[in-house]
């Protein structure tokens, strides 16, 4: 099952600055809250999330417990050609996750 989802605009033309919506499924336990039995839930947050587009790093996020569960990151990126977006992340438990999705870019119609 995919733990991440990426949403691009429907139509991307080369040269556009496009909005990317990235949603990662993660509990982001802060380490301050208790479970139903009154035991503290150990901290487990995403430490580092790297987003690459066609091999080039376009966004690096270092979240903390201050980011809500199932974190959403919306950012912009300049699209030049069809490329694969590759997301990798690592959390406090040492678990790594990754997700790939191709961003289809239409060639710009030069008159």
């Amino acid at each position, binding site marked *: 099952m995919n733990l991440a989802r990426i949403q691009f605009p429907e139509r991307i033309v080369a040269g556009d*600055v496009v909005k990317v919506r990235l949603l990662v499924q993660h509990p982001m336990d802060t380490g301050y809250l208790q479970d139903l039995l009154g035991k503290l839930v150990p901290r487990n947050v995403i430490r580092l999330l790297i987003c690459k587009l066609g091999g080039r790093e376009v966004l690096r*996020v270092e979240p903390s417990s*201050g980011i809500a569960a199932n974190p959403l*990151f919306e*950012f912009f990126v300049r699209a030049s050609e069809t490329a694969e977006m590759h997301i990798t992340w690592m959390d406090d438990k040492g678990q790594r996750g990754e997700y790939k999705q191709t961003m289809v870019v239409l060639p710009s119609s030069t008159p």
Partner: protein
Amino acid sequence: MTHTTASRRRWLQHSASLGLAWAGLHAIPASAQKMESGKLLTLAEMMHPITRGAKLLQQDVTLTAPMLADNGSLVPLGVQVQSPMTEQDHVTHLYLLSQRNPVTRMAVFQLGPWNGRADINTRVRLAGTQVVVALARLSNGEFRYGQLDIIVTESACVDAS
């Protein structure tokens, strides 16, 4: 006749003590609420560990968030930095800082000229009503910041279970 007056007097005394007890009960949650929200940091305390004396101006950074956030566990927060995002002049780092959270530095974003726009939207956790600061580091080493007051009715650091 005398009997009824005495019981009425006693009843009045009892209701008075009850009222005092009621007031006492109310005082407890007030102190509890103070405990769950930590110390408020000043803007200098929040930003100095990052800026370390570099040039800092309050301009070009806009924060968008609901004025009143019902649930501190999930507050949508947007940050826009007015920057051309060219190779010479772009935003390299974007820090989201909280005044009251146990972890001041909520998130760090590393951006570059390939982003086209320095515009980030995310969802944060807030431990009570506070000022949220977005601090942007520019490619020339200077800093810009913007701040926003957010009223939070339910803190993220109280137990949800």
